[in-house]
């Protein structure tokens, strides 16, 4: 491994930390209605949009129930629009490649997947969707699903800051619009232009026919509005690619520089939201403790991904492939990776996309070494190593509440978090939200490995085949959307099962968490005394870290042992399947 190998990783992570501070501060101002430099530009736009939505809807104070209902109904409306666009794309414009309407089951799966920020793709973009569908059914929900997760987190943070027993968590529509107009669209537009400068395509044409100089057949090159989608895909931690191979495609991710930009984009908002959290609750120290806990987890997982990839695999070495790094070639496991990214730029991307549950890929995850598989699966199972937009942050707080509760029981004090008492009702709801995740991963995985109609989808045999199924459901449950793509997911079973897992993994936890926010909001803030168990200390940080690891490991370790860990042993023993 070279100096550059590590420098690239350090540079990327450093950029994330440095950028997350100003962005987090800015978002805190936006969501507490404080003045920002850009108000003069954005206020008229937002006010115009509020008027279109309706004056009463956009000015009412919302308690947790109202906020949640408006969020759910809006998601439903969007789902209907997406489903209709996909199903009838053959009657809509910009369908130069003459694709038929998307088959009902696949359209259902895709709708569910995109409206929930999952971006699980049972289809190949360039062989299924018209440019109109890519914009109206894919790019569109990339903005709104990210925003949905984000505003729920904002409402949640507000619950902890309410001092007067009010139940007002804010206005869903205002939060929704402000995040899109003030954060997502401006950043996307600027970054997307940079991506085009580097070589990303952006056109309404659908394909180019090239005649290679050495003769032979023509090469049909599919193009489209790639840069616009390939930017929000990362910034919104969505992950749905324009092309089947996602950010590995040179038209979406043309250079090593764009690769770093995309990684920073993925990590930016989930990292920033922690800074936002600190500013909104008025306790930056608390935010940095949480940042430290999640950052440490991320670095440990990242190392478990990049080091094994550089070591390569026995079957590559046996074929006479140089797995050692040198100045003129990267070595390592280059199956399913691009030369311009090498090992470091690919494995770091894989670690980040599963940590921040984005699901974009710049290399074939299915071909990764088993230990790297532990990183990818583990981060999606914990779903809070920063995690996706808003939702990952909430999961980290769930673990925090559980840590507070356990610590409180251990030392015999009333569990409090940020001055609010955590009682039986909250712990029950939080535990329910936490338990849904393993249920929707493990149950369908178990079912699938016994079902012939599921096993016929496998792209790899033996232990790795089991990992493909486990990955599919972990990815669906965690709103990730990446895949061990050897699995043929476009079958009735996987379209229905993953859609169900996505829905159950997304909405019930959000509803439970909003109910918690509702009851937290009404509680008075107890002033801290010497008897208070402080949560903004290094000691509690360790406890938080341990809670995440222990609860997570107890839940998922057996499933990992059967998959990637067993495969690691088999691989070292020279077995193939």
């Amino acid at each position, binding site marked *: 491994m070279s100096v550059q190998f590590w420098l*690239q990783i350090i*540079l990327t992570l450093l950029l994330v930390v440095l950028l997350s501070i100003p962005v987090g501060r800015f978002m805190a101002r936006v969501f507490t209605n404080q003045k920002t430099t850009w108000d003069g530009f954005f206020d008229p736009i937002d006010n115009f*949009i509020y008027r279109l939505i*309706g004056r*009463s809807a956009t000015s009412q104070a919302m308690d947790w129930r109202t906020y949640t209902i*408006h969020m759910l*109904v809006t998601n439903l*409306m969007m789902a209907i*629009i997406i489903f209709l666009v996909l199903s009838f794309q053959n009657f809509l414009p910009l369908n130069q490649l003459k694709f038929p309407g998307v088959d009902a089951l696949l359209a259902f799966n895709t709708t569910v997947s995109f409206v929930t920020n999952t971006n699980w793709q049972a289809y190949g973009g360039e062989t299924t969707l018209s440019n109109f569908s890519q*914009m109206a059914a894919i790019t*569109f929900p990339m903005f*709104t699903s990210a925003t949905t997760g984000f505003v729920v987190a904002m409402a949640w943070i507000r619950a902890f800051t309410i001092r007067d027993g009010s139940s007002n968590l804010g206005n869903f529509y205002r939060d929704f*619009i402000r995040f*899109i107009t003030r954060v997502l*669209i401006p950043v*996307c537009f600027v970054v997307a232009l940079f991506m*085009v400068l580097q*070589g990303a*395509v*952006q*056109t309404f044409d659908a394909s*180019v*026919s*090239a005649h*290679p*100089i050495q003769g032979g057949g023509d090469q*049909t*090159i599919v193009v489209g509005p790639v*840069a616009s989608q390939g930017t929000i895909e990362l910034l919104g931690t969505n992950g749905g690619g324009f092309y089947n*191979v996602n950010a*590995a495609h*040179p038209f979406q991710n043309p250079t*090593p*520089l764009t*690769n770093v930009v995309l990684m920073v984009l993925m990590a930016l908002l989930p990292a920033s939201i922690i800074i936002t959290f600190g500013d909104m609750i008025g306790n930056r120290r608390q935010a940095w403790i949480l940042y430290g806990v999640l950052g440490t987890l991320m670095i440990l997982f990242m190392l478990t991904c990049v080091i094994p990839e550089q070591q390569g695999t026995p079957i*590559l070495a046996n*074929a006479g492939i*140089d797995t050692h790094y040198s100045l*003129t*070639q*990267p070595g*390592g*496991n280059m*199956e*399913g*990776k*691009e*030369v*311009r990214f*090498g090992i470091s*730029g690919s494995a770091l991307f894989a670690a980040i996309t599963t940590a921040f549950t984005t699901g974009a*890929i710049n290399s074939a995850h*299915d*071909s990764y070494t088993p230990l790297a598989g532990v990183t990818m699966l583990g981060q999606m199972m914990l779903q809070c190593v920063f995690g996706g937009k808003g939702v990952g942050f909430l999961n980290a707080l769930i673990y925090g509440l559980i840590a507070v509760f356990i610590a409180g029981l251990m030392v015999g004090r009333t569990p409090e978090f940020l001055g609010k008492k955590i009682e039986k009702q909250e712990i029950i709801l939080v535990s329910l939200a936490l338990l849904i995740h393993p249920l929707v991963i493990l149950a369908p995985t178990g079912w699938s490995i016994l079902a012939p109609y599921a096993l016929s989808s496998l792209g790899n045999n*033996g*232990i*790795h085949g089991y*990992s493909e199924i486990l990955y599919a459901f972990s990815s669906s449950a965690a709103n990730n959307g990446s895949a061990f793509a050897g699995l043929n997911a476009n079958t009735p079973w996987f379209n229905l099962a993953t859609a169900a897992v996505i829905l159950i993994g997304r909405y019930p936890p959000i509803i439970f968490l909003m109910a918690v926010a509702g009851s937290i909001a009404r509680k008075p803030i107890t002033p801290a005394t010497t008897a208070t168990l402080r949560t903004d200390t290094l000691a509690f940080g360790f406890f938080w870290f341990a809670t995440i690891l222990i609860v997570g490991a107890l839940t998922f370790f057996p499933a990992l042992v059967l998959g990637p860990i067993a495969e690691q042993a*088999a691989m070292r023993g020279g077995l*193939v399947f």
Partner: protein
Amino acid sequence: MLSTVGSALRVSLVTLILCGGLYPAALTVVARLILPYQANGSLVTDGQGGVLGSRLVGQQWQGPEWFHGRPSATTTTDPNDPNKTIPAPYNAANTTASNLGPTSKALQDRLTTDRKALDEAQPDLAGKVLPADVLTTSASGLDPDITPANAALQVERVAKTRGATPDEITQLVSQNTSRRTLGILGEPRVNVLELNLALQQKFPMK
């Protein structure tokens, strides 16, 4: 309830137009205006309007007179059976990776077969340790690049068929080699299409 549906529908339509319509459309207009070459796919033309390919998208090269790219796992529909696929390297209308795992027998078999074929085509490579990109397929199936080590292995073969000296070809390779961005990012690489175009210009095949 009805008013909730109404406002939810309106916010959906407004954001649909804003995020799914105005944003990509505005970007397309601006990008094609100020960066038309990139926005249209970085196309390489023959000077008379014919498109030879994209400098970002790899092509399948055959024969000893060209530098070869990496193996590609892309496929196309079997013309004899629409439910099956057949290999179609560098198919830029249906991208895919091999998705073969670290303990895959299919991968092991493919590597063994390809190694044997390579050693037969270029006997000087027999028994040598190969750079990591020679036998492995890329993530996109369209990787436009090879490593400098891979290019170096092909210099002698290309020089011989084109009647040039290995030094002349090596010089051409280094002219077409990109370094790491800022000395840190990515890997050194050689763009195969650009190298072959330069090759054809300087040492044309008779």
